């Protein structure tokens, strides 16, 4: 048993602060977008097309990060885009985690035929190129927020199932599980009280990682024009447009790209940091 | 200074931590076998590692000199030192099961260093390896050269490691508990083999072991290491007739072949050791000057 005090006084770590801070900032942007966005993200004005950001010559007051080819404000679109990104991250991440971790836990703990069936499905899923699978699903389900979330859950549950199954398998082999069994605890109860708490750190780390991946998948789908309706602002959509006009207006690509980059990096760093912090073995 | 290897006041400690070796002084004369005895944890393997330059990264030499053939190794650059060790010294390791590279055939493991470091031709190195393998009683050396380590028994592998150690005619061999990891039946054969090879090639040998019985069979002189400190340096005959340090006496009493056949290690009271400590330090100094 470690001294509880050292646990409390341990520094949380720079990367946890930085990544957590960025994500908080983004959450605020998502919630308060209508109040803090300087412009209407959908308002087009062809006379204001491709205005550079404020420090360059020829910039237009009020359009801090410039405008796209249709004269829409880049900053406002990024702020509104954060809404969709955050919703997808939270909802798709959580649902994927619930379904994937449950299946992994069942496969690893019960073994036998549930394991065989679940593992077979994981094998088949691993043989699909994930991006193509996602695009295919959206083509079937139609575009829209719900479709994106369903597609992410369908594609990525295996990530949780694989890792949690392996962890549950190794946990089940340990003596304390056997002793809980001998003590006459119900199988299902043992799984929830003995196995689940020990795989929880991994689940939490995977969940934050998955949130970052969900944001990326949404951006990729927007990029191939299969996300939400074309005029609602998404980071992926902005990147797709910026990619085309990158030689004429770099800012249309750069700012949403930086936002996306930092967001994905933050989610994964947060996951790694939490894992180090909560892993009973590493602690 | 006489002898091929002279270690003077060598101190090794954990980086930012306590001492492992405290002012160790010992000599290995050319062509002689010197035993280094101590219980596990006394730091005896670290002396060999300090000479060979393979101390773990957590340890560092804080003071002392290691003279090899009239040259202080610690004054050389790491590259020069490595080359000098490679050309004049060899190691017979403790565990033959882990000391051969599992992904390489036996032949190259013996010949490569002759070619790479000593500049032999490939044919000469191979002839030499075959000769040595025959000398350590390996049946069908030509076939064994083409096998992988996992195909051979522990005893065979230790023979190969001995052949490999003698291949370049080194002036000094450090044998680090070479029989500990082997079956009791094989231990005797290997011990006899090392003694024979040493006598035939006239190599100086530093024999590290925890077994005084083994030392009595093969060594000309010995050092006793206790808690990182040499408590006694002696010729064999003098040591067995009149051990100076109480730890040496306890060690002798625990050795079945000599004083009593049951042989159990009698604990040395801390107080006794402390009172003798100063006497031993003085003894060390005498040795250092000699």
């Amino acid at each position: 048993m470690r001294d509880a005090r050292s646990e409390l006084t341990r520094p949380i770590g720079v990367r946890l602060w930085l990544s957590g801070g960025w994500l908080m900032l983004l959450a605020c942007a998502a919630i308060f977008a209508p109040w803090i966005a300087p412009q209407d993200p959908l308002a087009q004005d062809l006379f204001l097309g491709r205005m550079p950001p404020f420090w360059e010559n020829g910039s237009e007051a009020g359009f801090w990060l410039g405008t796209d080819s249709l004269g829409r404000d880049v900053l406002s679109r990024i702020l509104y885009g954060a809404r969709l990104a955050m919703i997808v991250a939270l909802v798709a991440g959580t649902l994927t985690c619930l379904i994937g971790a449950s299946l992994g836990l069942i496969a690893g703990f019960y073994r036998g035929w549930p394991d065989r069936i679940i593992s077979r499905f994981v094998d088949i899923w691993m043989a699909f190129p994930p991006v193509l699978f996602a695009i295919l699903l959206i083509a079937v389900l139609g575009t829209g927020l719900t479709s994106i979330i369903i597609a992410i859950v369908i594609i990525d549950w295996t990530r949780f199932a694989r890792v949690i199954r392996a962890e549950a398998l190794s946990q089940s082999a340990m003596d304390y599980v056997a002793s809980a069994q001998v003590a006459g605890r119900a199988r299902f109860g043992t799984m929830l009280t003995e196995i689940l708490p020990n795989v929880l750190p991994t689940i939490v780390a995977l969940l934050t990682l998955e949130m970052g991946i969900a944001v990326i998948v949404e951006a990729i789908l927007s990029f191939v024009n299969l996300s939400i309706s074309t005029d609602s602002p998404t980071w992926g959509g902005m990147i797709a447009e910026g990619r085309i006009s990158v030689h004429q207006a770099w800012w249309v690509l750069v700012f949403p790209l930086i936002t996306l980059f930092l967001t994905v990096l933050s989610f994964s760093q947060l996951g790694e940091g939490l894992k180090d912090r909560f892993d009973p073995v590493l602690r | 200074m006489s002898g091929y290897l002279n270690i003077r006041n060598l101190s090794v400690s954990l980086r930012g931590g306590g001492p492992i070796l405290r002012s160790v002084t010992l000599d290995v004369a050319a062509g002689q076998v010197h035993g280094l005895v101590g219980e596990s944890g006394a730091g005896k393997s670290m002396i060999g590692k300090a000479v060979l330059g393979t101390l773990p990264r957590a340890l560092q030499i804080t003071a002392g000199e290691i003279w090899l053939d009239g040259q202080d190794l610690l004054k050389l650059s790491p590259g020069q030192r490595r080359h000098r060790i490679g050309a004049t010294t060899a190691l017979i390791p403790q565990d033959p099961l882990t000391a051969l590279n599992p992904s390489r055939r036996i032949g190259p493991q013996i010949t490569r260093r002759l070619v790479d470091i000593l500049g032999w031709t490939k044919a000469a190195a191979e002839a030499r390896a075959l000769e040595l393998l025959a000398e350590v009683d390996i049946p069908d050396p030509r076939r064994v050269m083409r096998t992988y380590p996992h195909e051979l028994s522990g005893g065979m592998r230790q023979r190969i490691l001995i052949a490999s150690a003698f291949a370049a005619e080194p002036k000094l061999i450090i044998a680090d508990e070479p029989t500990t990891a082997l079956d009791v039946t094989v231990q005797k054969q290997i011990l006899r083999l090392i003694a024979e090879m040493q006598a035939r090639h006239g190599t100086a040998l530093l024999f590290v072991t925890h077994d005084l019985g083994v030392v009595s069979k093969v060594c000309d002189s010995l050092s006793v290491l206790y808690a990182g400190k040499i408590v006694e340096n002696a010729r064999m005959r003098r040591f067995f007739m009149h051990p100076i340090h109480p730890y040496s006496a306890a060690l002798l009493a625990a050795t079945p072949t000599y004083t009593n056949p049951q042989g159990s290690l009698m604990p040395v009271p801390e107080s006794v050791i402390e009172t003798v400590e100063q006497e031993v330090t003085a003894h060390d100094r005498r040795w250092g000057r000699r």
Partner: protein
Amino acid sequence: MALLRAILVRLLTTAITLFGVAVIVFVVIRVVPGNPIAMMLPPGATEADIARLQMQYGFDKSIFEQFTIWLSGVVQGDFGTSISLRQPVSLLVLNRLPATLELSIVALLIAVLIGGTMALVGTRFRDTGAEGAIDMGAGMALSIPDFLWGLVLILLFGVLWPVFHISGRISPSLDIDFTTNFYLFEALFRLRFDVLADLIGHMFMPAVALAIPLAAIIAQLLKQSLKETMHLDYVTLARTKGYAERTVITREALPNAILPTLTLVGVQFTFLIGGTVIIERLFSYEGLGNMAIDAVINRDLPLIQGIVILFALIFTLVNLVVDMMYVVLNPRLRHA
């Protein structure tokens, strides 16, 4: 006997996996709303025209019947006819496959080169600031997926310092009469270095984008494996023989440290190949992935099916090759 049994079991599971993939794709794409046939015909086509084409493509039958017809065709090497491009799927797919294979293999080579170097340098300078820097770099490279690296590269080498082409596979002016679709290997073979340079100029950014995450994984895994190996007795013994640390790492530790890394890298390589789908789109590279996205957008059912099955086949083959390499490189298994 045990080996034969293992091979048979392996082949059987591979077949089941491929069958599963086929069934899922087949079912999923037949739920697609919208009539693919209607999209093929010019406006004003009559109901009779649509019905006739539907019959031609077999869409009037039940899903189960369609599947058996399709499967019996596949067994004979017939993957059907593309609706949007009106050519045999097998022909279209085989024409595009070399481009994707070349891209994946070049990316793999880059990843092994960068990742391997980082692992070796990190091991040589272990427990120093250099190792810390490599760990940090690898950690970051790993957090960011290939899609974003591709965009970053476009900004760096396409806009800021435009040295590489940001789209396509080859400049039209240099499109010599290739006899195969392996442009890179053919240019090399025919010693057309101008063409080779142009091909590399096009391939550089997509390949590097795909390689970065894999390089990071190789760096981390191999370095860990090397560091563990460096503590082993035979490595220490090699050191006493007078070899430099560099030689000890590459010659004694590396061959034994590669094995544990290999299996994981195999799985990661299939992820890399999966990544070509979006990377090819991003760089307008004319490979399988780019064609697949077009096929989905055009609702070209036979083509989607063919491409997905091909990807699944490649993935299972990669895993098979990795397992075989594991046996070949491990003397213990080779002689068992």
